[in-house]
């Protein structure tokens, strides 16, 4: 063991840092590695994050430049903290450039890598084509999913019939036993999930997967392939209705037979296509051009809409009861120009409009009603058919409280550090409860099996409240930023930091977790 004075001594500091860096990349980090290694690892990570952040900000800046908001950036040296004589400034490019003394072998290496890449691509293409032509599954490689070996047996929920499906790293789909977190099967997708909007949808005993290559159907019990249809990269959630799978891809909007994957109809035009909803036999999709509505059975375009002039289309909200709900705002974002519009599903004609002179945000439909909120501290429920208000209540919250529709009522966070549940039918407060430590708007997550989940105003804790009376069940600093996957038999499933967790809904104890970084996409409870 080195004497303390020799650690990071000037004569050896560079070599020691290099050694620690190399060992870190070779050995997976885990508890128990030395404090010095942790220091070096965290320094690397800290600067990597800084550089990634700078690249992210630069990307946003370019978008704002293209829109004319910002002046084009001058290529003068920026205040990056780098030395003035540093040979390279661009961090992304830097890692690809040879360092002094490395150029010769780097050229050889680059050539070899290029040859290898081309060979791999061609090989992959050939294999992919063969698989598609065969229309059958192929032997999945070993998934890299790490499964905890210590599912804490603090509860014995009856979850044997339930499965958690998730998109994991390395383009695999994994099925977990909901009770234990153990892997039941894993499936290698026929297309990558990178650079696409991966999605999972379950219908009966079939799991449908949207990937960069297209849509794939697999048996939910064992992960075996049923069919694969290369539609191109899936851009949004797959929608399934009446035995048809709808997919919006970069180049097309397609309807596939859920039974065999055969393309029933396909639309091309201004890409990309993003599916928003299907309701009452109408498929709603955002395209690179206007918003469009299609007949779900035939693909015939029913109508398309682009608001021109002083009002522009802002966002699709939802569709139900033969109407589609949109928000629209005045050009320039003037809050006084925000409106809600209900368009007839079959022809796109305006059925009714709702305006309050302030920003209005609808957030869901239930029982023939549209629920929304305004930033002058009102919640409202409108009749979907006529737009007439059923109720309107003033509260302490504003449009930014992220109210959520639940089975128990309208779940809201207020700017007074409280949470409240309002009656769906009358808007009256069923209960109001303070969120400990919350000084401003809290953030509702959702509700499952009689428990409502909400973050405090500082995103420091997740609180579980009884949906019936608002009493606090438990809180935890874990699962910050979580989304609610679902709940069953006293267990709630959360996705946090690319991990999926099973939590005892009664006391917040962790039952099992599929570790951070192993989950890459949507998680589904089936």
């Amino acid at each position: 063991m080195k004497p303390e004075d020799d650690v990071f001594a000037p004569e050896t500091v560079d070599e020691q840092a290099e050694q620690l860096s190399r060992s870190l990349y070779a050995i997976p980090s885990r508890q128990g590695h030395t404090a010095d290694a942790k220091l070096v690892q965290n320094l690397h990570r800290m600067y990597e994050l800084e550089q990634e952040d700078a690249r992210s900000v630069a990307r946003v800046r370019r978008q704002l430049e293209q829109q004319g908001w910002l002046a084009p950036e001058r290529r003068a040296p920026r205040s990056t903290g780098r030395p003035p004589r540093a040979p390279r400034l661009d961090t992304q490019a830097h890692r690809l450039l040879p360092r002094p003394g490395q150029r010769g072998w780097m050229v050889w290496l680059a050539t070899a890598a290029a040859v290898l890449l081309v060979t791999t691509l061609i090989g992959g293409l050939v294999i992919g084509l063969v698989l598609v032509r065969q229309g059958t599954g192929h032997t999945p490689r070993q998934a890299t999913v790490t499964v905890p070996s210590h599912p804490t047996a603090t509860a014995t929920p009856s979850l044997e019939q339930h499965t958690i499906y998730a998109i994991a790293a390395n383009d695999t789909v994994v099925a977990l036993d909901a009770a234990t977190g153990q892997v039941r099967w894993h499936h290698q997708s026929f297309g990558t999930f990178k650079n696409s909007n991966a999605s999972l949808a379950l219908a009966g005993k079939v799991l449908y997967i949207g990937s960069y290559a297209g849509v794939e159907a697999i048996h939910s019990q064992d992960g075996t392939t049923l069919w694969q249809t290369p539609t191109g990269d899936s851009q949004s959630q797959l929608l399934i209705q009446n035995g048809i799978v709808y997919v919006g891809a970069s180049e097309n909007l397609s309807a596939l037979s859920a039974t065999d994957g055969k393309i029933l109809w396909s639309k091309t035009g201004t890409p990309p296509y993003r599916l928003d909803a299907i309701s009452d036999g109408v498929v709603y999709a955002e395209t690179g051009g206007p918003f469009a509505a299609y007949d779900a059975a035939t693909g015939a375009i029913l109508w398309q809409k682009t608001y021109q002039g002083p009002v522009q289309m802002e966002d699709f909200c939802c569709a139900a009861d033969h109407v589609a709900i949109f928000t629209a705002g005045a050009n320039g974002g003037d809050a006084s120009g925000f409106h809600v519009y209900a368009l007839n599903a079959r022809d796109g004609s305006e059925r009714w409009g709702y305006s309050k002179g302030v920003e209005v945000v609808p957030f869901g439909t239930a029982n023939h009603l549209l629920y929304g909120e305004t930033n002058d501290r009102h919640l409202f429920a409108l009749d979907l058919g006529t737009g007439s208000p059923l109720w309107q209540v003033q509260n302490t919250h504003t449009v930014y409280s992220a109210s959520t529709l639940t089975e128990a009522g309208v779940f809201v966070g207020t700017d007074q550090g409280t949470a409240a549940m309002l009656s769906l039918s009358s808007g009256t407060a069923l209960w109001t409860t303070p969120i400990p430590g919350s000084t401003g708007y809290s953030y509702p997550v959702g509700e499952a099996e009689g428990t409502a989940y909400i973050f405090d105003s500082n995103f420091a804790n997740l609180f579980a409240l009884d949906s019936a009376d608002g009493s606090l069940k438990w809180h935890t600093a874990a699962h910050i930023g979580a989304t609610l996957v679902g709940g069953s038999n006293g267990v709630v499933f959360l996705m946090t930091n690319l991990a999926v967790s099973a939590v005892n809904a009664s006391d917040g104890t962790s039952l099992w977790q599929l570790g951070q970084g192993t989950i890459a996409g949507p998680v589904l409870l089936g």
Partner: protein
Amino acid sequence: MQQRPRATGLDQASATALFHTYSPMVFGYLRRHTPAREDAEDLLLEVFLAVFERGGLATLPEEEQVAWLRQVARYKLTDYYRRRARRPTTSLEGYAEEMYADEALAPEQVAMQHEEEHRLRAAVQQLSPAQQQVLRLRFGEGWRTAQIAEAVGKQEGAVRMVLSRALKLLRGLYRDDQEGVTPQ
């Protein structure tokens, strides 16, 4: 380039200055509260579009500018979680590196790791500018001390000395941590 129609008189120079000054801070805040980097980028765009469209921020005192921006960022974050609940589709583009993180971490350990990173960043900011610069080049750029010396115009021995002192100072942080000393 054609100017976008605006409801306010915020000129391009003011908008550029605002973005230059505050975008790193706002992005850092958004990234801490979103699971995917690309989502934080989208939200950063939305925050500054709101700033530019509504205007007025450039005329506020600096402290009020920061408070106003944080508020808008929080609003956009809230909207993001609402939208995400409505459309549970997840894009993977920004996940590439995190996808291959190789360890199963309990939530408590994740929280500890974030705390550790926070403490390290705070400790680095306490170092001298020269020490920070050498650390950045050594661990951010991956340069060896000889390359750093060449770039900054100093002797390699001097760079080694700076790096050694910086690491020994930071090392104290981790020694305390390993011995179970709770930092104040």
